């Protein structure tokens, strides 16, 4: 059947089971948008292309599906770069389609032309420039395959205008065959010999720790991971990206480790004799000084990406494989293994951990007059029974959300970990709300971050997405101010955000609901009202101005050298 490139594009999206595109039109995309008008695919019109990418990202993190964006050439494409890099650092499956000038104009400095393939080469898992309409179907199929397989990541596909309106023969059935890519074959099945070594190490370990990360969530390995912990009675910690992969209310939960991790998590890593990392990459926020990281431990590292293994820390037993498949295999081996009286064996270690927990818990003091930001998150946790989908911006708001909201399920904590992108939370919340229209979605934000993509409130109102934004408003760029206080003698260079708008009025201006709390007694009523309102809400919590995130591991120190207050 003869079809235009634009028609093939939509047919392929349908074939990939895509029902939602986040996008923003432009000149080179007129033919594609004409086809979208005629189709029944849902298109969410954002107000900035960065919002489209973060929304597709939030959609993917919440649902596990591949997020899809469509933006125009030139500035439309360059506006996606931050969002693409965000998804790349956190390994989120996404396909970003960018329009491009006609092929005969490429390289000519045409109107709205950029070499987006060149620009995003280092921050995409892979990218394509489609030069011939005959290649379009294959490229779209490959793009989705690459985005969702192995270690997931964003793939960018650049479609020139003449490719979109070229007419070629398209046979959908043919494209349904299994995709074979010569140069790309990720390893899913772990090496059984390596797993046997892991079983041995578990058996011999006296002070083991399980450390899970984003890979657990992406692989759907949360149940297997939890089973491993309970079977072998191993306490669990998780990186920011892994929160929710293990129940945060379980007695074996240590809290998050690293720069703003809990005391007991960092001390456990410092004292453990076996560290099993699953779906983690031992990033510098977690390890602190690498030469003193987990000094007493043998490290087992299970991950689908060989480049992460042995990149930052020495690994005794590397296992390359998909997290779920590897953990299922490991659990099967352990189930037939006699681990002896495991309760008695673990008791001294668990008692030590309990002592760390009780002597240095996460704590803050909530008085009568000024709202503490941690208090807002704690109340949010209580009022939502820990079941909301929480997105965050970046900085202090992000750390307090990670510390004080305890996630029992995966895909409920959506935060820009690797790149740390301010402005991520609001559009990501919209994407998550689209994926789950009946769930409560809350963006925990700072007054700095929220202004970066505030325009997406218009998107929220247009599509009736009842997300709740909780701004922890301290009038500063909080995390940077904290460092300036502790290490630069309180020289607050350019961190005072003192001309912020009235956020409640701003919400109303967009057609949303605006609420404010200035006293601790107002926090719960505001949260309750927001949750009960079936419309998008901005809550402006005016909080203590110079509250700091503790514990804190200063740069260049080991994680056991925490500042506690």
């Amino acid at each position, binding site marked *: 059947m003869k079809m235009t490139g634009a028609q093939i594009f939509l047919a392929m999206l349908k074939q990939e089971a895509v029902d939602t595109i986040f996008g923003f039109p432009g000149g080179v995309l007129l033919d594609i948008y004409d086809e979208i008008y005629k189709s029944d695919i849902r298109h969410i019109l954002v107000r900035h292309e960065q919002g489209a990418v973060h929304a597709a990202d939030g959609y993917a993190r919440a649902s596990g599906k591949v997020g899809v964006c469509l933006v125009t050439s030139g500035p439309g494409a360059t506006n996606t770069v931050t969002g693409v890099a965000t998804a790349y650092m956190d390994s989120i499956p996404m396909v970003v389609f960018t329009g491009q000038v006609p092929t005969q104009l490429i390289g000519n400095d045409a109107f709205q032309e950029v070499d987006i393939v060149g620009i995003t080469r*280092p921050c995409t898992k892979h990218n394509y*420039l489609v030069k011939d309409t005959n290649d379009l179907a294959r490229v779209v199929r490959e793009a989705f395959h*690459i985005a969702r397989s192995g270690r997931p990541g964003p793939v960018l596909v650049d479609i020139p205008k003449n490719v979109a309106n070229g007419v070629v023969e398209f046979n959908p059935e043919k494209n349904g065959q299994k995709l074979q890519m010569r*140069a790309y074959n990720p390893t899913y099945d772990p090496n059984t010999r390596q797993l046997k070594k892991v079983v041995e190490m578990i058996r011999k370990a006296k002070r083991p720790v399980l450390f899970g990360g984003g890979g657990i969530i992406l692989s759907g390995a949360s149940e297997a991971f939890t089973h491993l912990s309970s079977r072998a009675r191993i306490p669990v910690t998780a990186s920011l990206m892994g929160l929710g992969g293990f129940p945060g209310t379980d007695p074996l939960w240590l809290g998050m480790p690293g720069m703003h991790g809990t005391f007991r998590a960092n001390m456990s890593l410092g004292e453990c004799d076996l560290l099993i990392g699953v779906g983690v990459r031992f990033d510098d926020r977690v390890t602190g000084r690498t030469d003193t990281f987990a000094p007493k431990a043998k490290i087992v590292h299970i991950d689908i990406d060989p*480049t992460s293994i042995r990149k930052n820390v020495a690994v005794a037993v590397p296992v390359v494989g998909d997290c779920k498949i590897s953990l299922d295999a490991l659990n099967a081996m352990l189930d037939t293994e006699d681990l002896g009286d495991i309760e008695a064996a673990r008791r001294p270690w668990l008692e030590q951990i309990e002592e760390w927990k009780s002597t240095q818990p996460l704590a803050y003091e909530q008085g009568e007059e000024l709202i503490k930001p941690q208090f807002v998150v704690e109340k949010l946790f209580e009022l939502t029974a820990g079941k909301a989908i929480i997105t965050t911006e970046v900085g202090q708001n992000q750390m307090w959300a990670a510390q004080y909201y305890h996630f029992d399920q995966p895909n409920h904590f959506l935060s820009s970990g690797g790149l740390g992108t301010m402005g991520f939370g609001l559009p990501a919340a919209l994407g998550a709300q689209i994926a789950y229209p009946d769930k409560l979605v809350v963006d925990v934000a700072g007054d700095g971050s929220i202004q970066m993509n505030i325009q997406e409130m218009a998107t929220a109102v247009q599509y009736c997405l009842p997300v709740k934004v909780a701004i922890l408003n301290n009038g500063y760029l909080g995390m940077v101010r904290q460092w300036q206080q502790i290490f630069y003698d309180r020289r607050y260079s350019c961190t005072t955000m003192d001309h912020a708008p009235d956020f409640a009025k701003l919400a109303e201006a967009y057609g949303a609901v605006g609420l404010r709390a200035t006293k601790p007694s107002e926090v719960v009523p505001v949260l309750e009202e927001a949750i009960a309102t079936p419309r998008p809400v901005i809550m402006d919590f005016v909080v203590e101005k110079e509250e700091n995130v503790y514990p804190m591991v200063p740069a260049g120190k080991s994680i056991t050298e925490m500042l506690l207050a």
Partner: protein
Amino acid sequence: MNSKRHILTLLVDNEPGVLSRVAGLFSGRGFNIESLCVAPTLDAGQSRITVSTKANPPLIEQIEKQLNKLINIIKVRDLSIDDAVQREMAIIRVKATSQTRAEILRIVDIFRCKVVDVGTEQYTIEVTGDQGKIQALLRLLKPIGIKEIARTGPVALRRSPK
């Protein structure tokens, strides 16, 4: 730790931008490229890239893994000096006066290379050999006066199994 020179031979899809990906990977991660050679193989859909780089053992492991991760890279192999045939070509323009002319021709004869161009004051020499041979020739020509040089950097293939 000990940095060693490594010659990496990469079999890659012959697609536009693949060389850019490889070069970008090296520069983006701070790996160094000493030399780079690329050309199609017998299969028109595949090219071979030969990169020489200097790295210590943990670094070369990371470089190989990162290269393997690239979607268009089919195969990566590290050819250490022992189990590969390694050749490089150089074109060298040497200053040639009436006193030095004979000496240059003697050196050319000993190294079994060729004079491919003659000028009033210069000879242009073409030489093919392993890195050691090229280095030795350059050392001898340097005092005579090298004006310009173009080198390919090494290409290499594994030796046949015995």
